C-alpha cells in the first residue's frame, strides 16, 4: 500500500495580520492541519508572483496567500496593490491551466486565530480532494531526468 496523499501547501503571509493570526491560533491551542509551511513577509504587497512560481517549482500542491483585511494594512495600502496583482495573476494561471482551486487567497487579521485554523483545515481538505498536482510534478520530474534524445 502506498502512503495516503498528504498535500504540501505553502503559505505566504504578512507578518502584521495573518502571521499574528496564526500565532493566536497557536497560543489559543487550536489544532490545525500540519500540511502548511508558512513563509512570513512584511506585507502582502511584498508577495511577488515569483514566490508562487517558486513554490510550484519546489513541488507544492497548493498555495495560500494571506494578509490584512482591506483598510488594515500596516503600510496603508500594500494589500490593495496585492489584490489587483492577484486578480490578474490568478486569471493568467487559470488560462495556462493551473487550477484556481490550488491557489487560495484570504484576509485574516491578528484577531482571527480561529479563522486561520479553520481556513488551514479547509484548504488542506480541498487540496487533498484535488490530489497531488501531478501535471506540474511531471514537469519537475522531467527536469531531473536524462536528456530525452
Amino acid at each position, binding site marked *: 500500500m502506498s502512503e495516503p496523499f498528504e498535500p504540501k501547501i505553502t503559505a505566504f503571509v504578512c507578518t502584521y495580520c495573518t502571521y499574528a493570526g496564526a500565532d493566536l491560533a497557536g497560543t489559543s491551542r487550536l489544532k490545525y492541519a500540519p500540511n502548511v509551511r508558512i513563509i512570513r513577509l512584511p506585507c502582502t504587497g511584498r508577495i511577488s508572483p515569483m514566490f508562487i512560481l517558486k513554490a510550484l517549482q519546489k513541488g507544492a500542491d497548493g498555495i495560500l496567500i494571506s494578509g490584512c483585511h482591506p483598510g488594515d494594512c500596516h503600510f496603508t495600502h500594500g494589500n490593495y496593490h496585492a489584490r489587483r496583482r492577484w486578480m490578474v495573476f490568478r486569471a493568467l494561471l487559470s488560462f495556462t491551466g493551473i487550477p484556481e482551486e490550488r491557489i487560495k487567497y484570504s484576509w485574516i487579521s491578528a484577531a482571527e486565530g480561529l479563522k486561520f485554523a479553520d481556513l488551514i483545515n479547509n484548504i488542506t481538505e480541498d487540496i487533498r480532494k484535488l490530489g497531488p498536482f501531478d501535471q506540474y510534478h511531471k514537469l519537475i520530474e522531467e*527536469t*531531473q*531526468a*536524462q*536528456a*530525452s*534524445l
Partner: protein
Amino acid sequence: MTKILFTDKLDSCVERWRSAGMTVIGPVQRANSSVYDAVKSASELDLNLVLTDRSIKELFFPQSEPMLRYAITKAEINTDEFLPPSGPRIIFGARACDASGLAIDDPLFGWDYKDEYWFQRRNESVIVTIACTKADEFCMCTSLKLSPDSTKGSDILLRPLENNKGWQVEELTDRGREAFKSVADLLQEGSDPAAATVTVPEKFNADACAEWLKNPENFESRFWKEISARCIGCGSCTYLCPTCHCFDIQDEGGSFEGIRRKNWDSCSFALFTMHTSGHNPRSTQSARWRQRIMHKFNYFPGKFSANSCSGCGRCTRECPVDMGITETLQEISKLSQ
C-alpha cells in the same frame, strides 16, 4: 543499376530499424513548428519540407543537457553523472546543410578536451540525408562551397527519384552500410533516374569575405554598426543555427541537491561576456554581431579549417527583423571588391 528505396517500403524500414533497437528520428511537425524528433512510423515523417524550423544540432547538443546530479552533506559531495541516452539511432531525412553542420562542429567538441555528450551521440547516430530538390530564397549552401547533395557529415545520401516514388541510395560510410544491411531486402536494384537537385544560386563570395574579415583595419569599420542597427539582440539566429555551439553551465536546485546543466547560450545576448565587475568586452549589439560573423568566417576557419556555417539560411529565415548572415556577407562581398 543502383539501389533504390521505394517510398512504400519506408514504413517497413522504420519498423525493421526500430525492432533492431534503433531510435528512428526524422523531420516532423510538432504544434505548428517542425523539428527532428523520434518517430514510431514513417507516416509521422514530413519529408516535404525544405528544412525543419529547428536544426539537427539539438539531437546532439540539446538546448538543456543535465550533466551532473549533486548531493551535498557536510562531509562529502556525491555526484552522479548523466550520460546521454545510449543506443543506436538513425536520423532519416536530414538535409545536407544540417548534416554538414555536425561535421563542422566535430573538431570544436573534440579540441583537446573531448565532449562525450556530443561524441557519444555522434558515434551512435547514422545520418541519412536526402538531397534537396527544392529550396527557398534563404538557402545559401552553395555560397559556403557545399551543395544540396553534399555528403559531408552524412552516412547515407538518398537522391529522390524523378517519379517521386523513392530514392537512390548512396552508401557513404561503414556505419551507413551497416544500418542499411538490415533493410537490404527492402531495397531494390533499379535504373529509375534521380530528380535533379535544386539549383541554389551563389549569394556571396565566402573567400573574399574571409579576406576582408582578416584585415585588422576592418574590425572597427563603421560597417558593423550600420549592418546591425536593427538587431534586437535575441538569440533566435544562434539557437536555430546548426553550427552555433556556445553554451552556459548552470546549477539548478538548492545548496544541498540539484543538477548541473549545460544550456544553450548566445553571443547575441548582452550578458554573455559581461564580467562581474560590470565591464563588458562586447558591450554593444554591433560588437556582438561582429563577433558572430568573425567567429563563423574568420576565427573558426582559422582553427578548424572550415567556415562555421553550412548555409541553411535559418538565421535569415526566422529573424524577427530580417537580418542574417546572407545580407551581411553580401555587403562584405561588395566592400571587398
